[in-house]
């Protein structure tokens, strides 16, 4: 009972912090859609990983206001993103652009997977070779002969009549 009350209070408290003014800023639906998309896909530089549309931090609100202003001035989505990158760096883009510097970030996971898979393939092939290339030593040859002899007796059973 107490746990549920505590959780309810915490949830309510979080909602007051996380709620951002969601009323539409544009009469034009197309502009409103562009605005919403931009503020949802641009990252607030101060609050780790929150978008500027969902953060109550002052800088996030400033950035959202600028986005609105630029949209009204007829600036394109790409230009808006570039203007924010010019001021705050690539961090505001959730998807870092592909450049030499970010190549390792993009390619790193793929390279690791390829390396791991290569390792597995090489290991399998190595196992296959070691098991078939090495000749049996004398002790193992004796054991093999004994097993084959036993097997030869057993296969005769198929052709004989069952022992009574």
């Amino acid at each position, binding site marked *: 009972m107490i746990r549920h009350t505590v959780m309810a209070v915490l949830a309510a408290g979080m909602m007051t912090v996380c709620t951002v003014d969601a009323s539409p800023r544009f009469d034009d639906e197309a502009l409103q859609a562009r605005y919403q998309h931009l503020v949802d896909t641009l990252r*607030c*530089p*101060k609050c780790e990983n929150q978008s500027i549309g969902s953060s109550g931090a*002052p*800088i996030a609100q*400033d950035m959202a206001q*600028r986005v609105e202003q630029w949209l009204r001035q007829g600036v394109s989505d790409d230009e808006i993103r570039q203007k924010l*990158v*010019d*001021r*705050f*760096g*690539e*961090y505001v883009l959730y998807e870092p652009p592909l450049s030499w510097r970010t190549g390792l970030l993009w390619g790193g996971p793929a390279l690791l997977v390829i390396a791991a898979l290569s*390792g597995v393939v090489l*290991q399998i092939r*190595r196992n296959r070779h070691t098991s078939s290339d090495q000749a049996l030593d004398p002790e193992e040859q004796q054991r093999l002969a004994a097993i084959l002899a036993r097997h030869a007796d057993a296969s005769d059973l198929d052709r004989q009549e069952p022992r009574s």
Partner: protein
Amino acid sequence: MKRAQLWVYVPLILFIALAGLLAYSLKHNTTNDRPSAQLSQPFPTFQLPALESPDVLVDAGVLKGRVSVVNVWGAWCFNCEEEMDELHALAQMPVTVIGIDYKDDRAQAEKFLKRFGNPYHTIIEDEAGDLGFELGVYGAPETFVVDANGIIRYHHTGALTREVLAQDIQPLIKALTP
């Protein structure tokens, strides 16, 4: 030992190398985690009142012809108190310390300066925060070093420390001063 067995140690060696690299950079990292977009950019144009004489307008001309440390602060910002010693130390050095009072109330700002002393040659009153926005400021205090041509050469977010002064700012000032 068979060759295959030695390969097993490669991930472990890589891990230790990576951990060592991270530990080293954590210990020696006096600058920010992310490179600033402002480096090598000209200081943005602006025209704003001076805090202490509001009928006087300040523009980027105040930065030309000298090496400046531009410090973004506000009376509302808790960390700003922590760097006052460093700012006063900079004021004694051969560099011009310029303040940007960012999104602040003038009366509060003047109270702050009375309490902690005024290390600034000039203070720009950026009440709306537009100059800070052009500079990519997202949380005061932030500090820039600007060369005599008005180009930003250094951008630090967070309060200044003695290490930042000694390792980053002082050598840079020396390098930029003819």
